[in-house]
């Protein structure tokens, strides 16, 4: 079971959180200006990164705050936790032990 550093509460077990998918997908400000394809891209398509990416978590059984994390989708390693509005931490530029060669 993973452990997450809630930016409000501290280190807690994964079972207190719910996963919210890829982070920083802004809702288009003018939906009507988008073609069907562009709108569907916003709705359904996710980058599905193999490696480090940014994602959303909710501290559901805790402070009920949404926050962001950088996690490696292969090794499940977290490298950063940050709040809405915080400056974005950099994605690590390194390979991961255990990742497919």
């Amino acid at each position, binding site marked *: 079971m*993973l452990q997450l550093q809630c930016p409000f509460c501290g280190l807690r077990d994964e079972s207190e959180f719910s996963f919210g998918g890829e982070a920083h997908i802004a809702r288009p400000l003018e939906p*009507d200006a*988008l073609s069907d394809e562009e709108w569907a891209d916003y709705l359904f398509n996710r980058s599905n990164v193999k490696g480090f990416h940014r994602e959303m978590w*909710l501290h559901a059984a805790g402070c009920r705050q*949404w926050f962001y994390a950088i996690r490696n989708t292969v090794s499940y390693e977290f490298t950063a936790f940050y709040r*809405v509005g915080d400056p974005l931490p950099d994605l690590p530029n390194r390979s991961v032990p*255990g990742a497919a060669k």
Partner: protein
Amino acid sequence: MTNRLDTAGRIDRSKPISFRFNGKGYVGYQGDTIASALLANGVKVIGRSWKYHRARGFMGDGVEEANGLFQVQTGAKTIPNVRGTQAEIYEGLEFTSTNAWPNPNFDVLALFGKFSFMLPAGFYYKTFMWPAKLWMTYEHIIRKASGLGVAPKEQDTDHYEKTNEHCDVLVVGAGPSGIVAALHAARADARVLLVDEQSEMGGRLLSQNVQIEGNASSEWLRSALLELQAFENVTLLGRTTAFGYHDGNFVTAVQRLTDHLPESKQRGAREKVFRIRAKQVILATGAHERPIPFGYNDRAGVMLASAVSSYVVRYSAPLAKRAVVFTNNDGAYQTAIDLHRAGITVSAVVDSRSETNGDLPEIVRGLGIEVLTQSTVVKSKGGKSVTGAYVQSLSDDSKSLVGASRLFECDLIAVSGGWNPAIHLLAQSGGKVKWNDAKVCFEPDVVVQKQVSVGAANASFSLAEGLQEGAQAGDAAAKTLGFDPATNAAPKADSIKEQAIQPMWRVPYNADKPWDGPKQFVDFQNDVSVSDIYLAVREGFHSVEHVKRYTALGFGTDQGKTGNIVGMAILADALDKDIPSTGTTTFRPNYTPVTFGAVAGPDIDGTMFDPVRKTAIHQWHAEHGALFENVGQWHRPWYYPQGNETLQEAVNRECLATRNSVGIMDASTLGKIEIKGKDASKFLEMIYTNNWKKLAVGMARYGFMLGEDGMVMDDGVTVRLADDHFFMHTTTGGAASVMNWLEVWLQTEWPELEVFMTSVTDHWSTAAVVGPNSRKVVSSVVDGIDFDKDAFPFMGSRHGSIDGVPVWVNRISFSGELAYEVNVNANQGRHVWERLWAAGQPYDITAYGTETLHVLRAEKGYVIVGQDTDGSVSPEDLGMQWAMSKTKDYLGRRSLALQELRREDRKQFVGLLTVDPKIVLEEGGQILNEPAQQIPATMLGHVTSSYHSACLDRSIALALVRNGHKRQGETIYVSMNDGRTVPAVIGSTVFIDPKGERQNVA
């Protein structure tokens, strides 16, 4: 009494124990397992194999055992598939063979074995491909024959616990390297947890007489364990299996607390699951010996060499009179020595290698035991158990047999094909393994968690190496965590000169047809033989994962602990590939089977699994005869039968009473969210499809909530209490998910909005008073509200009091009748309910439950989200265009313009009236254009809600039908479970009062 060898052993001969096996009485000693006790009693055949029902005996002495599975005890206490090699005996223990009827020596289903040519690999898959009719014929035979033990049919009477553990260093396995690792970490003051699955700690040392630090290993073990026990920072968990290794160094383990005790001595929990979060993990899980397949290698009396040593040295069990040892490595020579020292004749050591110059072979030769190099056992001789071994020489390249075979009379064949490190937990943790050509095994390679493997688990098979690695790992783990390990050296054991192991995966009977020859078993529990693997390859299964599933290799309760690597090596050979490129199957939790009781923990009887939510009025409902239904975690009144009323009779009465006079319903379970802040209306504008900015204070509005994909997600009435204060109702089941939905948008997309939300579902108690007389009832008890029809209009919201208790009344309706929802602080909920009930007596006020609620709303065509919708229904599909604003943006709006949602033939919400008004359609019934269609029929939609309406004296239904809005008046056919199709006419969803005049009571 049992016969025992003269060896020291670890059984307590002063404590005899009586037990019964297959109805017959036996005696063993304290310290015996089921296996050692039976073997000491001369019981060799103990069960039948899974597929061919071949007679089988024990092959191992521990967790790897594939054959020795038993059904232990009876009734609620029965445990299936108990490994006899690990289960301890106790006074009064009773157990039976698995898979043998009536007993293992005369097994009715052994007939299968005689027809084994009919049961090749993939038999079950092929059977499924036969015509269905034939399957019916075979099914009952196969069902009876397949499967292993029998699950208890009664409620589990035991209880189970779970606990969280935290430690600096978790050591898994208390063999020599694990013990040393724990000692070194403990001496550095680290908090250490040592878990071991056996009844005694010591691992392989329990079955060996060797020297450590110049003393007998048993002495070293005793003092090491005493030292560990003395540490306050050390916890020792015996009879505990670490069965899962998850992310974040989170290891799950189960301790068996009472299974080794007679029922009269069992106290407390039967099993306890430890959820361990460790800063560092040291895996000292040891290794499993593997067999070498040869002809009829499954006869009782063919055993792993290390198991033979264990039975002789640890349990002093007289296994045999004469033994043959068959090996490809030096380790099994120790078994020959152990047998010889115990007074059992070793006829020969058969070694596939051409040279054997190690220390142990020298000792064996010195004992006068014949050593046959470059040789193999080709097959066993015997009936149910072994009476001899045929031995033949191997060619120089080991690829064929040469010369004539020699028969050695023996009643035991001890086999060693080498060792497989127990890499299961390492693999579960995400680590990778690599093939070691010199040691002929997979060993740990890449580690991704804070973890290290030591000793045999790290393919360091010698005692000296294991002790050294354990000490280093203990020190290193402590040091990493900031402790200061003392500089004490690892305990020393003699290093032994060894000749390298040589791969030996099968006997080369026929160089051209490697699958030829007598049956050679690889996986004993699933009866997978060498020829099955070759057959799978010939039939086109090349991936190791496919071959596993086609042959059932590694599928049993043992998960292939002995057979997997052998099978993969044979597969590599069959594919003409090497072992690393053939690969292994995936190692998944659990390492060994875990009881459902342990998984459930204290929730075993189900009462604690899911909290039950009851409203403040619950007790009143119970006192008035309500039957309840579960809606999420809520228990809601379903209906209130009077006398012998059926559900339908009660619902008819409740519906008529409500529409004719007045009914009362507990609506407290509806989700309630308070929304405050200066931007609250702006926020609601985005959340709901309709307009909120202009809603007057003191008025309510019905709202639809969509997902961004345009599909209906929830609905409900929201009241404006003040300019900056709204009160949202959600569906009972949707309350939590709607709250999450609101929070994610507010927090991450529009954090600049000044909005605050609180879930207040449980704070309020709500009584819905419904029907033409509802105003008379409510106004007679509520003070401070003008109930005049215009002063308190439909969708109005007013504050008043009952007996001085503040109440809040909303004139909203989910039935089409005049209705008032009276809200009060939940603590006063029952009082207010009873006051309304008393006030309603002159009008025969009738309490109704969810069933009547559903009928009343269906008569009006009101949607229930989640019943009439399923996540693929848009508001337009429901005909709810009126609830969708054209002047603002809202979540999901852009999706409604997508091509897919503009299709004219979408499934749309309609009413259905059966031609025969007596027939009530079945919810879920498929809708067809013609009464009799060839299968597969063209399905146009389904019935979402269906009831008998007492008010209309006929059936009504709601449905989603392709292009339904344009098909009004057309007849369709609805399939029923009994195969009939029932004609029905598509019409309006509103069956009663289409103009909505009923709630305008003057």
